[in-house]
C-alpha cells in the first residue's frame, strides 16, 4: 500500500487587489504518494503556480490561503507558524523555480548558497557543509565541482544554474520536490539533461515530485499521474496513460489537439482552442471552460459540474459524463504509440 505524503484538500487561494478578489485557486484537491511524480498542467492563469506557492507557504501579500487543508506527513501545513514553516521549507519540501537567472543570489558563490540550506537544517560545520556542497554538485553533473563550488552564478551557464538550483533543493534530501516549470527557460538539449537527472533522483532517492509545466511532452516523460488545471480548478486527473490516450474532459482533448505531432503528415491543420481563459475576479458560475468548449450545453453555464469518476483514480469535471447527457461524438486523445 503506497503511503500518502501530501494531501491537498479543497484548497482555496485568493489575491485581494483593489479591483476585488482574484480567486486564483478555487477548491483543489489531490494527493501525492511517496516516491511518486505527478504533473500539474495548465495554461498561464490556471492556478498551477499558486497551488505550489500555497504548499510552500510562500504566498505574498495580497495573496492568502482562504480555505482548505494541506496535509504533509500527517500535519496541516496551513496551520503552521512561519517559524515552523522555516524548518520544513528547504528541508522536507524543496522547490525549483522556473528562472535560474533570477532565483540565485548574484553576490554569493554557488557553494555558499548550497551550504546555507545544509548548515541551517543539518547543523554541519563549514568544512563538512562545503564537502557536502561539492558532493551535491557532483551528483547533479557539474564538471570539476571542487573548483566550481567557489564560482558565482554569473560564471555558470543557464543549464548549470538550473543544476545548481536542483543541488540546493536536494541538499537536505527533501521528501517532496516541487518543480515549477524547471525547464521552460532552457534549450531542448539541456532540458533533456535536466529531466533525465530528475527521473534519476526519483528512482535513487525516492523523492516525490510535483512537476508544474505547460509542456505536455515533459509530463508524459516524467510523471505517472497528471492533474489538468483550468480557471483555478482541476478539470481532470488520471494516470498519464488515461490523460493522453483516453481524455474525458474537452479541455484536455483541446490541449492534446492543439500541439503539432511529429508523426502526422505535414501541413495538417492544428485545432486551436478558440477564445481566452476566464477572468478570475468574476469566475463563471458554471464550468470555467464553458465559453471555449465545443460541446457546451445549457447546464454547463448554470451549474459547476461535479467530478465524475471514470475509473478508479481517473476523474473529470464535465457534465458530458452525466448519465443523462447527450452522447456526443468526442474525439479521443493521442492514439497509443503513434506520436
Amino acid at each position: 500500500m503506497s503511503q500518502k505524503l501530501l494531501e491537498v484538500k479543497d484548497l482555496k487561494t485568493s489575491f485581494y487587489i483593489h479591483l476585488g478578489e482574484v480567486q486564483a485557486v478555487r477548491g483543489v484537491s489531490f494527493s501525492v504518494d511517496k516516491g511518486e511524480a505527478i504533473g500539474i498542467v495548465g495554461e498561464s492563469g490556471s492556478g498551477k503556480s499558486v497551488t505550489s506557492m500555497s504548499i510552500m507557504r510562500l504566498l505574498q501579500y495580497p495573496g492568502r490561503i482562504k480555505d482548505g487543508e494541506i496535509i504533509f506527513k500527517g500535519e496541516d501545513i496551513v496551520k503552521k507558524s512561519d517559524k515552523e514553516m522555516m524548518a520544513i521549507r528547504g528541508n522536507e519540501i524543496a522547490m525549483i523555480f522556473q528562472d535560474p537567472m533570477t532565483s540565485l543570489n548574484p553576490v554569493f558563490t554557488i557553494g555558499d548558497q548550497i551550504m546555507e540550506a545544509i548548515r541551517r537544517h543539518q547543523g554541519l560545520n563549514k568544512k563538512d557543509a562545503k564537502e557536502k556542497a561539492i558532493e551535491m554538485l557532483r551528483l547533479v553533473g557539474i564538471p570539476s565541482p571542487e573548483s566550481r563550488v567557489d564560482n558565482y552564478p554569473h560564471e555558470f551557464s543557464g543549464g548549470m544554474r538550473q543544476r545548481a538550483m536542483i543541488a540546493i533543493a536536494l541538499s537536505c534530501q527533501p521528501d517532496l520536490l516541487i518543480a515549477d516549470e524547471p525547464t521552460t527557460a532552457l534549450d531542448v538539449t539541456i532540458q533533456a539533461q535536466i529531466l533525465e537527472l530528475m527521473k534519476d533522483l526519483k528512482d535513487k532517492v525516492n523523492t516525490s515530485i510535483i512537476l508544474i509545466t505547460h509542456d505536455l511532452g515533459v509530463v508524459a516523460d516524467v510523471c505517472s499521474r497528471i492533474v489538468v488545471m483550468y480557471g483555478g480548478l482541476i478539470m481532470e486527473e488520471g494516470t498519464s496513460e488515461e490523460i493522453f490516450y483516453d481524455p474525458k474532459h474537452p479541455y484536455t482533448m483541446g490541449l492534446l489537439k492543439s500541439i503539432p505531432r511529429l508523426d502526422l503528415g505535414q501541413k495538417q491543420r492544428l485545432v486551436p482552442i478558440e477564445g481566452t481563459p476566464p477572468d478570475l475576479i468574476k469566475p463563471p458560475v458554471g464550468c470555467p471552460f464553458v465559453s471555449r468548449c465545443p460541446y457546451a450545453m445549457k447546464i454547463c453555464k448554470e451549474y459547476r459540474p461535479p467530478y465524475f469518476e471514470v475509473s478508479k483514480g481517473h476523474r473529470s469535471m464535465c457534465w458530458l459524463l452525466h448519465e443523462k447527457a447527450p452522447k456526443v461524438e468526442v474525439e479521443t486523445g493521442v492514439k497509443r504509440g503513434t506520436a
Partner: protein
Amino acid sequence: MSEENMRKSDILIEVKNLKKYFPINKGLLGNDVQYVKAVDDVSFYIRRGETLGLVGESGCGKSTTGRTIIRLYDLTDGEIIFDGAEIGKMRQSEVKPFRKKMQMIFQDPYASLNSRMTVADIIGEPLDIHGLATGKERQEIIYNLLNKVGLGKDHASRYPHEFSGGQRQRIGIARALAVEPDFIICDEPISALDVSIQAQVVNMLEDLQSEMGLTYLFIAHDLSMVKHISDRIGVMYLGKLVEVAESKELYEKPTHPYTQALLSAIPIPDPEVTRSKQRVILEGDVPSPINPPSGCRFRTRCKYAMPICSEAEPELKDIGGGHMCACHLNDR
C-alpha cells in the same frame, strides 16, 4: 525563359556567406579586440511562397541571422540578394524601399509594442513612414488589417496593455502586414504564448501565407512547431548552418549528429513512446562563440568525433535530393 532563369526568379531571397561578428573590447585600454562570431559563413536561399524554418539552441545565431537579413544589424561580410537586388552593402537610406517588402514579427509581444501608442497608430505607423495612405484610406486599411488578424474595429483605439499575449502578437502581425510585404521574418513568434493560443496564431500565419502569397523565415526552438509550419528546415549550431533539408526528410533521416541529438531530445506527448525512446543526451554546454573549436564546431560534444574533425571544417554539401549536411561522416 531558360531553366536557369526560371530557377532564379523562383528564389526570393538568397544569403551568401553571411557573417556577423560583434566586437568586444578587452584589456585595460579596451584595445584588445575580440569578436563574437555570432553568424559565421552561412548560406541559404528561400523560394517564393516557401517557409524556411531555422532551429538551434540559444546563442547559435539564428536570431542574429534574421536580424542581419533585414538589416537591423550591419553585416560583417557576405551578400544578401533580395528579389535580384544586393541589399547587404546598401546604405540604410537605400534599404528603405526594401523594408516595405520585408517585415519582422518579434518574439516578445509585451516588449515589442509601444505602450503609449494606440493599436491604430501602431499598425498605421508603417503606412506613415512609407507614405502609403492617409486619412480615411489609412483608417480603412487599419480596420481591414485588424479584421484579417481576427480583431475588431473597436480594438483600434485601445492601448497594448488592454490585450492578452495572443492578441498582442496579432497586433504585431497586423503591423507587419500593413505595408503588404513579400517576406516576413518570424522570430520566435509563438514562444511567449500558451499552448492553446499558439495553435491559433500558427493557423493564422498559415492562412495569411496562402492568401497573400507570403514567404516566411520562421525562427524557433520548438522543433515540433517548426516541423509543422516549415517546408524546409535549417539547423544552426554555433554560428554555422550544419544541415538543411525538406522538413519531412530532416525528421525522418537526420544526418548530422547534432540534428540527431536535437531531435531525440524533444519530449513527445505520448507516455509510452517518450519513455521507450532512445535519447542522445548531449554532454556539456555550447562552447563560446568567441573562441569556437577548430574544425567542426560540434566535435567537442559529438560522439562520432574523428581526428579529421579537429583539423578541417566540414563543408555544407548536398548529400542527395537537396539534403545538405556539413559533416565529415558523409565523406567516408
